[in-house]
């Protein structure tokens, strides 16, 4: 665990040190090549801008309106039907938010952790869930958008399936490890 944390801490400084040194000794004009590559960053950033704005606007309007709470409320009977802990309903907004928005999901998770306590069932589940899935919907639209893909085929279904598996696995492992 400490080793991994150390690797994470050193990874970037070491890359920044070693890559230019190796390149220099292999006779690459280091500064000029760096600038050439960096130029692409600007183009890519500009290209994804409209996709970012389009998605962020729709997600923000949806979340700020309170629609998320209503949706979560509707899903509550499902929790009861599945025979799950009623407390579990608190996690629904996070589960819906997770594929849509990274910062939004972090906000919901932070609120859950503070409200229920970090070492409660909900706190641990929210922590696990936040760390275990990505903003699938958002990543797909921006990544595909950046290269002009319009037809996603089965990509969205596959990504969301992985998210659902992540949710189920989170519930299972948190219950198994801590209770």
């Amino acid at each position, binding site marked *: 665990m400490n080793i991994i944390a150390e690797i994470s801490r050193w990874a970037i400084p070491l890359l920044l040190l070693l890559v230019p040194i190796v390149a220099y000794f292999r006779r690459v004009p280091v500064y000029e090549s760096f600038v050439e590559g960096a130029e692409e960053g600007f183009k890519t950033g500009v290209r994804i801008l409209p996709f970012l704005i389009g998605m962020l606007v729709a997600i923000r309007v949806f*979340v700020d309106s309170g629609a998320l709470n209503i949706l979560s409320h509707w899903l509550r009977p499902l929790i009861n039907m599945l025979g799950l802990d009623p407390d579990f309903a608190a996690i629904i907004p996070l589960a819906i938010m997770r594929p849509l928005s990274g910062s939004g999901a972090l906000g919901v998770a932070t609120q859950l952790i503070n409200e229920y306590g970090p070492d409660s069932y909900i706190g641990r589940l929210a922590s696990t869930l936040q760390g*275990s899935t990505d903003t699938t919907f958002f990543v797909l639209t921006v*990544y595909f958008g950046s290269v002009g893909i319009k037809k996603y085929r089965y990509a969205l279904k596959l990504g969301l399936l992985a998210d659902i598996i992540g949710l189920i696995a989170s519930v299972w492992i948190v219950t198994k490890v801590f209770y």
Partner: protein
Amino acid sequence: MVNLIWLLMLAIGIVVAALNGHIESVTTSAMKAAELGVEVAIELIGVMSLWLGLMRLAEEAGLVKGIARIFGPAIRRLFPSLKPDSKALGAIIMNLSANILGLGNAATPFGLKAMQELQKENPTPDVASPAMITFLALNTSCITLIPATIIGVRLKANSVNPTEIIGTTIVATGCAMFMAILVDYLIRRRRKL
């Protein structure tokens, strides 16, 4: 499907805001989100330029090829449609490594670079290629060894053991990643892609 989801989020949001009697929040939300989009993109331009500059150095020094040669054979099995000398492989490996190490803002530039390289090999420019779908499935379900942000949140909330969720997180993502790879493989086999 994306068109429908986008429309539904927007329309439901506006209707719910109207029913809740705070329709003006739609205006502020929309404007703020648009501004945020620019902020995110501008920030990304900085980080992305840095990483793509470094990536270019690594490419010209032959390092990317080296990495692709070491890790390539394992990764390549997931991408049977890639060309033997595909440039996408290096970017894919860099993206996954950054994800695993939890270096989120380094992962995005490599990921977008990988998409550009995959697009060069895509025979149908506006339809997602199987390799792209496999890559995105891997990318969004990728294991993170240290979920640093959430550990920080737990620390601030006075958790007795902020890092106790590392193990559960790895197991949960591991399941998601495994299923993503498996289902992707099955779909490709059934559709003969």
